[in-house]
């Protein structure tokens, strides 16, 4: 077993993918000598060369658009978007081109590409560096969207995303990049499938679903709730498209209550879809409405206010209490 940070775990996963498949290439801004602004690709260009770890010009639409071309030619490009807020210049390429190529070609074309995006707030950054834009992409048919929350998942999920024949948006929880966890780098296979949710902590009274950077907040909230005698089951969704409704529904049918937490604004966020789907699937099991805990419906605020914006342990507990009040 090794103890790695999320950033190093992704690095290790990328390395393994580069080693095992000569068609895997990485493209992005400052990913070579610098190793990316978060050092996730550190050392990869040195070991695999400039042809496989490609420093691109400074143009996100260009990165994604040319990655599409590389994929059409048989490569498996991994694109690094430097910050969540910088993906928008590539929005057209992702939504109109990446997502639809398969359907437009009536299944003749596949685009096995991964678009890595460091996501979310909590790092004291200036504007455009703390966005949670997962709902845009999860809303787009043709894209798969996943979000890792811990080093073990980071290591395996990046490899599984690269191996996937569909395009995958891969969210990395940037404020957790340096948090450590145990994993087995030499294991032959991933512990679970890419698009499965997991029960991160079992519980009885209320289900608390989250993904990416909010999973840790929810686990901490569950620990705090336990001290007050409330048993919270925490689900790490891991995949946002597709959503693993089986794990969610099974849990909600047991607890009768669901709280969904994310950093993104609640209005039309992932929580809205989850609430609607769970209401349809588990209507007779629900003891309370599905509660959403998320960011407010405002532009991400200046960093001095981000602690007020981001759902913290208290806000999550407040959501749990509201669900239990019914």
């Amino acid at each position, binding site marked *: 077993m090794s103890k790695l940070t999320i950033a190093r775990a992704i690095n290790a996963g990328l390395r393994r993918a580069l080693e095992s498949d000569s068609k895997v290439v990485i493209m992005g801004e400052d990913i070579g000598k*610098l190793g990316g602004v978060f050092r996730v690709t550190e050392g990869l260009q040195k070991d695999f060369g400039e042809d496989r770890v490609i420093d691109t010009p400074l143009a996100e639409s260009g990165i994604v658009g040319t990655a599409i071309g590389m994929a059409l030619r048989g490569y498996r490009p991994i694109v690094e978007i430097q910050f969540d807020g910088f993906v928008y210049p590539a929005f057209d390429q992702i939504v109109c081109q990446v997502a639809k190529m398969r359907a437009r070609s009536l299944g003749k074309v596949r685009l096995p590409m991964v678009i890595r995006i460091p996501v979310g707030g909590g790092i004291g950054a200036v504007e455009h560096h703390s966005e949670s834009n997962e709902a845009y992409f999860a809303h787009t048919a043709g894209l798969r969207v996943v979000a890792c929350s811990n080093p073990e998942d980071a290591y395996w999920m990046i490899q599984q995303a690269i191996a996937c024949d569909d395009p995958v948006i891969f969210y990395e929880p940037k404020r957790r990049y340096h948090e450590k966890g145990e994993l087995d780098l030499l294991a032959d296979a991933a512990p679970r499938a890419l698009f499965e949710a997991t029960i991160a902590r079992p519980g009885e009274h209320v289900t608390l679903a989250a993904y990416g950077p909010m999973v840790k907040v929810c686990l901490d909230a569950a620990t705090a709730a336990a001290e007050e005698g409330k048993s919270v089951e925490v689900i790490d969704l891991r995949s946002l498209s597709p959503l693993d409704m089986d794990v969610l529904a099974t849990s909600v049918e047991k607890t009768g209550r669901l709280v969904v937490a994310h950093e993104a604004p609640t209005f039309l966020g992932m929580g809205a879809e989850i609430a609607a789907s769970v209401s349809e699937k588990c209507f007779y099991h629900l003891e309370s409405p599905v509660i959403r805990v998320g960011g407010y419906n405002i532009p991400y605020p200046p*960093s001095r206010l981000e602690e007020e914006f981001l759902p913290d342990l208290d806000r999550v507990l407040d959501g749990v209490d509201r669900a239990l009040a019914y």
Partner: protein
Amino acid sequence: MSDNEVAVTKDAAAAVDAAALAALHAPVPETIADGGPELVQLLTPEGERLDHPEYSAYIDDLTDDDLRGFYRDQVLIRRVDAEATALQRQGELGIWASLLGQEAAQIGSGRALRPQDYAFPTYREHGVAWVRGVDPLNLLGLFRGVNHGGWDPNENNFHLYTIVIGAQTLHATGYAMGIQHDHAVGTGDPERDAAVIAYFGDGATAQGDVNESFVYAASSNAPVVFFCQNNQWAISQPVERQSRIPIYQRARGFGFPGVRVDGNDVLAVYAVTKAALNAARSGQGPTLIEAYTYRMGAHTTSDDPTKYRISAEVEVWKLRDPIARLKAYLTASGKADPAFFEDVEGEADVLAVRVREGCLAMADPAAVSMFDHIYVEEHPLIEAERAGFAAYSASFEGGH
């Protein structure tokens, strides 16, 4: 002409084509040491005044006061920059983007603007902000994280900083199109005719938005000056990653003139920018200026340039310092005496203290203010969330 002659001519043409092609495909030199033969320079790094057949005329009307003012501007903004870097190191700012080394490019171009002109900056144009009259403390708010800029762009005709690379070049072009629609171009009235200046860096030249702004400006003949500070580095990527030809030469392909100026020579920058702004105001359309300069520091305080560039390069550029060369010129020409330089240093010290104290005094905004200014008109969801937030916050008062 015999068949043979035709063949020979064809061969010769082919040889010329091959040579031209080979030249086009020649590897780009790692660094272009001196900016090349077309660099407009009026002041050498040693502080010697040069004449230029086209641009000397544009500094003829500068008084000694103006020249000393260029010096003062540069020293003061460099001091603000150093203070901001220190404040970031001490945890008072979240991040800072230093302009160190680019003072002449910013002061020279900014001083060429008229009050009715409009500037669209990146996030590094502290020197332009300074000459437009934006208080340095206003700049610090964004970097401290108490706001996203927040100054009134129309107060000084200086737009908010734009962080998304290159986006502002389209805004600048559109603003210039508005000036055209207002018939504020080519009237000959120096108080009325206006132009726009769009700042961006060498990295931004790769962005679609920047190239589209060139197309739009050319298509509409908009009164906009594209001012590219080529500081040689886009975070870790050298300018050669973005362009195989000198950036100013790209303008030709879009159908307007381009000029490369020594960005560390405040006189040349002033002259070239003034000429381009004059052309824009008089209805002759856009110009691309490439100010050839160097980012002496890191991309931002979050960056570590030792990972990707050699210190010898920085040493070369230290010898081209924009402030030192102007000081040498002012001294040698007798336009400034030691007392003047001492006064400016003293003024810089005072300004640094004001910036530091002002930064430390900058309070965090009230949390509920994050719901302000999202829309012009009332929005029910915002109002509901504002009320919910206030009630939630109040639930903690009196002990939790």
